[in-house]
């Protein structure tokens, strides 16, 4: 019985963390801090997925969203280097207590993670059965095959577009060296 209670506690707590982190993400002045909250929010979202039995989706949420997409965001923000001035501004906006909340959130998440990883009593929801990787695969290549193919077309066109943009224009210099190599 205690595990059922614990399950509810974990579930609602991670829901709370998701909501709060997302709100904070929106309200931050500093882009990097906002991204930090976005990551926290997607991590707690992954825990919710896990609790609902969709372990595969949870893992993908972390690998794809937190692990790849968000990194590109951070990449861009870092490239835009906001510099000393905006950091000073930000320091004025964000007093020292600003770091208390994220650490509390992270602590809650950590606790949840540890609880969720307890293999003696896996936190399975009542009345919902887990979705195995195989089910996901069968669903993707069964009823949803058209959607998958459409998505892959979309990605392919994106890929070709990126390839075209990043194409190396042969400069006159390159042409010369090529000719020399050809003649030599």
């Amino acid at each position, binding site marked *: 019985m205690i595990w059922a209670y614990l399950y509810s506690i974990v579930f609602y707590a991670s829901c709370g963390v998701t909501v709060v982190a997302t709100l904070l993400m929106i309200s931050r002045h*500093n882009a*990097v*801090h906002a991204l*930090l909250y976005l*990551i926290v929010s997607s991590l707690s979202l*992954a825990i919710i997925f896990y609790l609902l039995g969709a*372990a*595969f989706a*949870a*893992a*993908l949420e*972390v*690998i794809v969203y*937190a*692990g*790849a997409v968000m*990194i*590109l965001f*951070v*990449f861009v*923000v*870092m*490239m835009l*280097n906001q510099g*000393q001035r905006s*950091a000073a501004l930000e320091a004025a906006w964000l007093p020292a207590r*600003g*770091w208390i909340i*994220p*650490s509390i959130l992270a602590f809650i998440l950590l606790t949840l*993670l540890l609880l969720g*990883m*307890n*293999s*003696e009593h896996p936190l399975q929801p009542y009345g919902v059965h*887990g979705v*195995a*990787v195989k089910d996901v695969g069968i669903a993707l290549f069964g009823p949803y095959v058209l959607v998958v193919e459409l998505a892959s077309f979309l990605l392919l066109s994106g890929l070709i577009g990126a390839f075209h943009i990043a194409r190396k224009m042969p400069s006159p210099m390159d042409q010369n060296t090529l000719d020399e190599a050809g003649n030599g």
Partner: protein
Amino acid sequence: MDPLVNSLLNVVLILLCVVFGAALLTWLERRLLGIWQDRYGPNRVGPFGTLQIVADMIKLLMKQDWVPPFADRLVFIVAPAFAMFVVVAAFAVIPMAPGVGIVDLNIGLLFFLAMTSLGVYAVMFGAYASDNKYAMLGGLRAAAQMVSYEVFMGLSLMGVVMLAGTFNLRELVLAQVDGWFIGPQIIGFFIFFMAGIAESHRTPFDLPEAEHELTAGFHTEYSGMKFAMFFIGEYVSVLMSAAMITVLFFGGWLGPHWLPPLAWFLLKTITLVLLMILIRGSLPRPRYDQLMAFGWKFMLPLSLLNLVITGALILI
């Protein structure tokens, strides 16, 4: 024994061993690099210099734990802790022997991939928070490198997953009773090995912290224990890559019965660690564009090829 106490003991013991092992690895690496360069390496403090790690630890603890005034304080402090957390958490899913291992997740392999993909945040946020040009360049390099090497790190493992038909690492090991996956998945092994080195950014893929051009890369501004976190985190991730390769390709704890399973696991892991140190001691660091080209133009097609061939062979 009470199962809760048992599992707690398991957790504490394994994590302690991992962190201690990583610390010892710093000594081992220096000794081995010394031997391969016809030197001795640290051999003064304690027997064979093993207490060098204690000396280093004391030194790092005594150092000023400096946070640059221009740094983003919160992020600057969190980043090294996160670096440590991620690699240690990834260790949680590794099955070392029957009954030894922290958790037995159904999606263990995916959990491992998730944790390694989060590892890049520590580097990037550390770099961003330092507000330093070298750190910034190192962080950008780390981001691009780790994102691209993650792609085929995941892909290279799918062959193993197809052969075993599971993401559970314990079952993956048991699926190798009839033959280790290194045979059919030699390409996958090669790719995963390279990607593992790249993920723990060690030479020859240590461009994020290339000393010769970027001082120390993303941890230029770090000192004292915060630096030590990054440093030990790197060694934990070396151990983790080696342990993961053992589990996935070398049959984990499986082996003839004249050694206990845990010993087999450790033996294989240590051999792989030695190989990684040898690679660090001998190969040059490529240029950054060469690194990217190697990743996208060679490793990615190779891993896709591996995937297709494995799939085809399983089907027929």
